[in-house]
């Protein structure tokens, strides 16, 4: 019997970027399933008893601190507790402190029993450029942005369209991550769409397409396919049979531009992917892109 693997999402961003708002909205979204949320204690989360394991201690500072301040096994212990209850949980979300390093926290997502699902970094669109030049916290903000897979722009409603565009241009220079205007659907944030459950019409908040492949695929083909990703693609997930890795099926996970492949622990027999794109992306272009994988190399 294979063990359950919990998707592990990191939510980072500087103070006031909207992490708490995002987490509260995820908590009220019944489509996401049962969440374990490890929060930064200085935030204000509407804790909804049984669904959430709040963390009481030194979680986030653990990875930043040094021996004198934080030599503990606190975060590892929290992850063990969550894993022990994995039958009651569908997904883990870790909120990084406002000055924390999302990339470092994300490494915990590779702990056995978990699967890193993406690093989401929020930015306050109305202040981010100014704050990125702050002498105390500018570098912290820039390194958070650089560490993201997905950037979510908050407070766009306070700005004119051309102001938002200039922030988006600036973000392109700072990070290879995909920047999306908040709010986005949970489907895009987590890639909730399951293979085969695809709705036959594109929904208002996202576009998705699935494709099943008849034969195993070469690594070289995946390489070419990855590089020709159309602009609207936010997430891809699924399992592939890869010629070079015949022993087990490979789990495919793409969040923004970053592709991860790992040996599947659940030995799924499928050879199929689902891709999720921003609203307005032509579904044909998504399908066409997935189709590149079935072309002979």
């Amino acid at each position, binding site marked *: 019997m294979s063990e359950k693997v919990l998707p592990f999402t990191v939510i980072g961003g500087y*103070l006031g970027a909207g992490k708490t708002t995002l987490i509260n909205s995820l908590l009220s979204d019944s489509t996401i399933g049962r969440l374990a949320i490890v929060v930064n*204690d*200085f935030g204000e989360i509407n804790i909804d008893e049984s669904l959430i394991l709040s963390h*009481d*201690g*030194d979680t986030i*500072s*653990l*990875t*930043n*601190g*040094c*021996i*004198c*301040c*934080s*030599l*503990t*096994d606190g*975060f*590892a212990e929290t*992850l063990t507790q969550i894993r022990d209850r994995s039958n009651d949980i569908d997904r883990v979300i870790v909120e990084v*402190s*406002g*000055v924390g*390093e999302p*990339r*470092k*926290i994300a*490494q*915990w997502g*590779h*702990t*056995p029993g978990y699967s*890193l699902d993406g690093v989401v970094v929020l930015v306050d669109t109305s202040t981010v450029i100014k704050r990125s030049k702050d002498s*105390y*916290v500018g*570098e*912290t903000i820039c390194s958070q942005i650089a560490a993201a897979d997905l950037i979510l722009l908050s407070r766009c409603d306070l700005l004119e369209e051309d102001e938002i565009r200039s922030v988006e241009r600036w973000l392109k220079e700072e990070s290879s991550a995909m920047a999306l205007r908040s709010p986005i659907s949970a489907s895009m944030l987590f890639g909730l769409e399951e293979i085969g459950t695809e709705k036959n019409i594109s929904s208002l908040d996202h576009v998705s397409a699935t494709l099943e492949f008849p034969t195993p695929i070469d690594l070289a083909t995946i390489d070419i396919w990855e590089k020709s990703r159309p602009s609207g693609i936010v997430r891809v997930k699924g399992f592939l049979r890869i010629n070079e890795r015949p022993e087990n099926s490979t789990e495919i996970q793409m969040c923004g531009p970053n592709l*991860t492949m*790992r*040996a599947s622990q659940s030995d799924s027999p499928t050879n199929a992917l689902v891709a999720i794109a921003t609203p307005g992306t032509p579904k044909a272009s998504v399908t066409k892109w997935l189709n590149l994988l079935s072309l002979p190399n």
Partner: protein
Amino acid sequence: MTVEVTTVYPAAAIYTMDSSKSTASAVAVKGDRFWALGSLDEMRSITNCEIDNTFVDKILLPGFVEAHSHGMASGLWLHTYCGFFDRSDPDGKKWSGCKNISDVIERLRVADNAIQDPNEPLLAWGLDPIYFSGERLVGSHLDLVSLTRPIFVLHASAHLATVNSALMRSEGIDAATPMEGIPKDAEGNPVGELQEPAAMSLAGSAFRSFFGRMKAQDTKWALGRLANKAGVTTLTDLGNPSSTSQTTIDEWQEVVDHRDFPARVFIFDSPAMSQTTATNLLATREKSSEKLRLGAVKVVLDGSIQGFTARLRSPGYLNDRPNGIWVFPPEQLTELLRPFHEDGLLIHVHCNGDEAVDVFLETVETLLSESPKADHRYTIQHCQLTSPEQYERIADLKMCVNLFSNHTWYWGDQHISSTVGPDRAARMNSARTALNAGVPISMHCDAPVTPLGSLHVAWAAINRKTASGSVLGAEERISVEEALQAITLGAAYQLKMDTEIGSITPGKFADLAILEDDPYKVDPNELRDVSIWGTMSGGKIFPAENT
């Protein structure tokens, strides 16, 4: 009615640290307090007194006060020591430093032979390969110790561990492990280094037992033994996020309040890492006893200089290395501290870099202008790179500093060559500048970061020698008198315990450091070698060899 006996202890010399009577030749103790001070003849007139000659050839100082140490300082000794410098364990056994890779292998072989159960992991700590020349120590070196027993060696920085192949095999760490912080060789196999806590936690059961064992109650008793051997009668657990939990308090009380425990312990909370409110902390403070103190605040603002994570002002680290990190957001410090400030709770903040000091000074200035406090004793912990101008501001705000003077010895050479260069390294832990500005100082060891030992800390501030033997920042040296003051009354002042401890003054707790040699008469270069006979805590004598 029985009258309590007063015991009079004549001594070879008594240095009181009390400015109105700095020396004496006998001290009288009644119950847990100093009762009188003077010559033996003066003492004889005390009613119902007994003379005890135990210290007749010893030198008495107030018990040393370590205002920045951590409760875990003793727990690491459950594991095998592999550090570069010689170090003594809680039982007084001296462990020689491991000067190269073969020393490390030899040390681990001995430990391996001593473990009966073939599956029990071998756990070790303190490894400091930056001092080793030549090749880097990796997992294959540890394989020379055992191919079957998992081995986990935590480095001195605590940011990484080296493990052997048996451990990687049993925990499934291999070429396919996707985590960052696991360096791989040319063939793509992990070399046996696990960097940062996430990677270290992959060491699974070895990682869990490394930290799990350190939580045992016994380690608190061992902390007392470490203190006793160093002449320390008051020490701190500086930053414990669960200090307000009744379980934590009960566990500490069971040990510290025991009459056989030789020291007072002050536990600071870390509200930035817990849910502790000012109301909680005030209530917790009420649970303090004479030996166990509770109800103060510690916040960590930045990282460390040797780890390149402290926040520095321009010109920053050498070679344009990026600035360090904030452990707590600078913008939120005022908000975090305000309720504790309003309630008059004692607040200490870890600031290694000079930029972190600026943030703390701005915060204190804001809080004091909102709500003035006459006797706040805000203390900057570490305060290593602080400039003379900052010291003027610290003095204006009536703040204190607790300097990490041991840094000169342990990392001074690295500070010259790789962190900040010789010019700013010379002003690190600038005790002279602080005293000239009128800032109350203490100095600390930050055990377990450096060994618990107040005389070493004082020696480092007096001589400012690096491990390679050069003098770093000669102008910042202070006198023996100033240094001894800093590790006694100076530290007590920062803990707001100066009316109870820190000097040999009638009415204060009878806490003594009992020395074999006179610290004012030995060569100041040898102060750290002065041997410690033991301590007195609350009137009870604790010879070092018996604890």
